C-alpha cells in the first residue's frame, strides 16, 4: 500500500516539476523513487495485510509482483533515458508511465473486482496515449487508435462479466465469490458461468492471447520503441498476474467450465505467435509476435492451477521481462544508429560491437529457452507445473512451439555473427545503456543459476 502511495506521489511530483522547473532533476528522483518502491513493498513480505475494507490484499504474491514490476520499471527508465533527451513532453511521459505503474501495482494486489477494473483502466488509458505519443507519425496514430478501440471493447466484455457475477453472488470481493462457489457447487445459475467466460475474454485480450491478439502486432510496431518495450514487459507481467490472481482465488474450483477454453486458447496462441514470428522481417514486429507466443506459455500456468503455478509464473514473467528489456535496449541502440528496424540492421554486429552482439545473443537464447539462461528454467518450471496437473498434451505442443521459437531467435544471432553488413562502423553505447546491459546480463545468468530460490518464494 505504501508503495502504491509512493508511486502516485512520484507521478504527481513529475507533473509539478513542469511548473516549478526542476525538469532536469526529475530523472534521478524517479529512479530513486522506484528503488524506494521496491524496498517499501519488500518490507511487507509475509505480513498478508488487507487494506480498506478488503479492497487490496498484499499477500506474498502481490509483494513479489510489485517488486518485480518496480524493478522492470527501473530498468525501463534506464533504457529509455536517451529517448527522453530528444522528446519535449518529458514530464507528461514520466507522469503517464508512473500512473501506469500505479495501475499495474493495483492489478497484482486487488481483492475486489472494482479495483481490478480501475487498475486495468489506469494502466490501459496511459498506454493508449503513450502509444500515440509520436503525433506526426501515422503508424503511431494508428497504433493508439487501434489499441484504444479494441481495448475499450475488451473492457466492455470485462465489465459485463463482472456485472453478471455480481448479479449472482451479490459481491465484488474475490474471497466472497470463491466461498459462494464452494457453498453452492452444482447449484450455480448459468449466468455466473457466462460472467466467468466474459471476464476471461476481457483478460485474454489484455494478455494478447489468440484469438484476441490481432491488435498486438500493429500496436507494438506502431508505438515508439520504448513504449513497445514497456508494453511487452510491464503490461504483460501485470495483466498476467491479474489474470492468474482472478482465476486462482476465484474460479479454480470450476475449472471444468473454463479449462477447455484456455486449453484451446493456449494452443492457438503458441501456434500463431511462434509460426507468424518466423517470417517477420522487422525485429520489432518479431518481438511483438514472440511476446504473443510467450503469453501462450504463461497460459500453461493457469491451466495447471496448482501450488507450483504462482511461483512458475513469477519466475517466467521475470525471466521474460529481463530478456526482453535487454533485446529492446540493443534494438533501440541499433535503430538510433541506422534508423532501420529490419533484421539486416544487425548484420555484422558481432564485429562492430562485440558486447552488444553478446548481449543480444544472450537475450535471444534466454527467450528461446536455452540452458543455462533464465528463460530455460522459466519454461522448465512452467512445464513442470502443467505436468503435475496431468496436462501432457499442452506441454508437448509447447515444447514443439519452443523449437519453432529457436528458429526465429537464431535468425538475429546468425545475422550478427555470420553476415556482413554494408555499414561496418563501430556502434557507440552510452554509459547508462552499458550499465543496464551488464545488469540484465548478470540477472539472466544469476536467475538461471539460482532459479530454485526464486521459485520457492511463492
Amino acid at each position, binding site marked *: 500500500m505504501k508503495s502504491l502511495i509512493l508511486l*502516485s506521489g512520484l*507521478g*504527481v511530483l513529475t*507533473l509539478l516539476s513542469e511548473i516549478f522547473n526542476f525538469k532536469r532533476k526529475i530523472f534521478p528522483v524517479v529512479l530513486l523513487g522506484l528503488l524506494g518502491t521496491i524496498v517499501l513493498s519488500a518490507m511487507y513480505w509475509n505480513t498478508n495485510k488487507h*487494506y*480498506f*475494507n478488503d*479492497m*487490496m490484499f498484499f499477500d506474498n504474491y502481490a509483494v513479489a509482483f510489485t517488486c518485480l514490476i518496480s524493478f522492470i520499471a527501473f530498468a525501463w527508465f534506464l533504457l529509455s533515458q536517451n529517448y527522453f533527451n530528444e522528446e*519535449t*513532453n518529458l514530464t*507528461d*511521459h514520466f*507522469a*503517464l508511465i508512473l*500512473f*501506469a505503474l*500505479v*495501475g499495474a501495482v*493495483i492489478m497484482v494486489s486487488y481483492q*475486489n473486482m*472494482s*479495483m481490478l477494473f*480501475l*487498475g486495468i*483502466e*489506469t494502466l490501459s*488509458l*496511459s498506454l*493508449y*496515449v503513450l502509444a*500515440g*505519443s509520436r*503525433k*506526426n507519425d501515422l503508424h503511431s496514430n494508428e497504433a493508439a487508435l487501434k489499441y484504444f478501440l479494441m481495448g475499450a471493447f475488451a473492457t466492455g466484455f470485462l465489465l459485463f462479466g463482472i456485472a*453478471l457475477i455480481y448479479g*449472482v453472488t451479490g459481491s465484488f470481493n474475490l474471497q466472497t465469490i470463491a466461498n459462494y462457489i464452494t457453498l453452492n457447487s452444482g447449484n450455480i*445459475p*448459468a*449466468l455466473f*458461468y*457466462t460472467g466467468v467466460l466474459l471476464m476471461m475474454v476481457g483478460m485474454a485480450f489484455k494478455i494478447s492471447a489468440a484469438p484476441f491478439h490481432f491488435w498486438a502486432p500493429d500496436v507494438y510496431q506502431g508505438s515508439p520503441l520504448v513504449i513497445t518495450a514497456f508494453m511487452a514487459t510491464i503490461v504483460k507481467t501485470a495483466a498476467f498476474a491479474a489474470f492468474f490472481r482472478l482465476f486462482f482465488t476465484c474460479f479454480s474450483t470450476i475449472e471444468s467450465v473454463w479449462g477447455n477454453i484456455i486449453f484451446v486458447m493456449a494452443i492457438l496462441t503458441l501456434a500463431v505467435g511462434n509460426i507468424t514470428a518466423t517470417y517477420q522481417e522487422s525485429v520489432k514486429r518479431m518481438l511483438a509476435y514472440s511476446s504473443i507466443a510467450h503469453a501462450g506459455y504463461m497460459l500453461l500456468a493457469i491451466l495447471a492451477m496448482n501450488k507450483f503455478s504462482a511461483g512458475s509464473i513469477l519466475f517466467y514473467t521475470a525471466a521474460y521481462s529481463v530478456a526482453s528489456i535487454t533485446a529492446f535496449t540493443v534494438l533501440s541502440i541499433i535503430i538510433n544508429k541506422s534508423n532501420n528496424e529490419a533484421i539486416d540492421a544487425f548484420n555484422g554486429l558481432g564485429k562492430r560491437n562485440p558486447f552488444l552482439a553478446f548481449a543480444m545473443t544472450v537475450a535471444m537464447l534466454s527467450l528461446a529457452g536455452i540452458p543455462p539462461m533464465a528463460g530455460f528454467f522459466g519454461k522448465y518450471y512452467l512445464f513442470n507445473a502443467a505436468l503435475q496437473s496431468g496436462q501432457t498434451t499442452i506441454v508437448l505442443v509447447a515444447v514443439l512451439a519452443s523449437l519453432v521459437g529457436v528458429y526465429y531467435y537464431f535468425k538475429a544471432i546468425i545475422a550478427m555473427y555470420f553476415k556482413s553488413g554494408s555499414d561496418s562502423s563501430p556502434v557507440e553505447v552510452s554509459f547508462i545503456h552499458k550499465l543496464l546491459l551488464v545488469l540484465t546480463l548478470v540477472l539472466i545468468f544469476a536467475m538461471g543459476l539460482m532459479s530454485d530460490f526464486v521459485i520457492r518464494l511463492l
Partner: protein
Amino acid sequence: MMIKYIFYFLAFVSVFSALMVVVSKNPVHCVLYLIMCFFSIAGHYVLLNAQFLAAVHVIVYAGAIMVLFLFVIMLLNLNTQSEPHKSTWLKFAAAITSGLLLVILVGTLKGSETMVMPVGNPNAGLIKNLGNTLFKDFLLPFEVSSILFLVAMVGAVMLGKKEIK
C-alpha cells in the same frame, strides 16, 4: 402491476432505439436514437430504485457526452453516406459471432428466471445512502478513480500540445 407495464414499455423503447442506432444510415439519427436509448435506460434505473444514478446518467451521458458526439459528427461532416464498404465475409463472420453471443446470453437468462431478487430498500439509491457506501466501503476505488481521471487529463493535454521542435 403498473410497474410491469412501465418496464415493458421502457424495455421496448431501449431495445428498439439501440437497434436503430446500428441500423440507421445517417450518423445524426444514430446519435439521436442513442440519446433516446440512454433516457429509457435511465428509466430502468428509476425502476430499480437508483434515482441518483438515473439523474447522473441523464446529465452525463444524454447531456454532456452526446452533445460532444453531435459536435464531432458535425465538424467531421459525416452526414453523407461516407461509410466504407465492408466485405461480405466480414459481415458474415460478424453476424455469426454476434448471433452466437446472443444465443448464449438468451440461454443464460432463460435459466435464471427462478433467481429473481426481492426489491430491496427503496431508498438505497438516494444520495445519502450512495455516499455512505462510496465513502465507507468503496473509499479506495473512489480515490483511485481520481488517478484514472488525472491520467485522462494528462493524456488529453499531451496529445493536444503543440510539438516543439
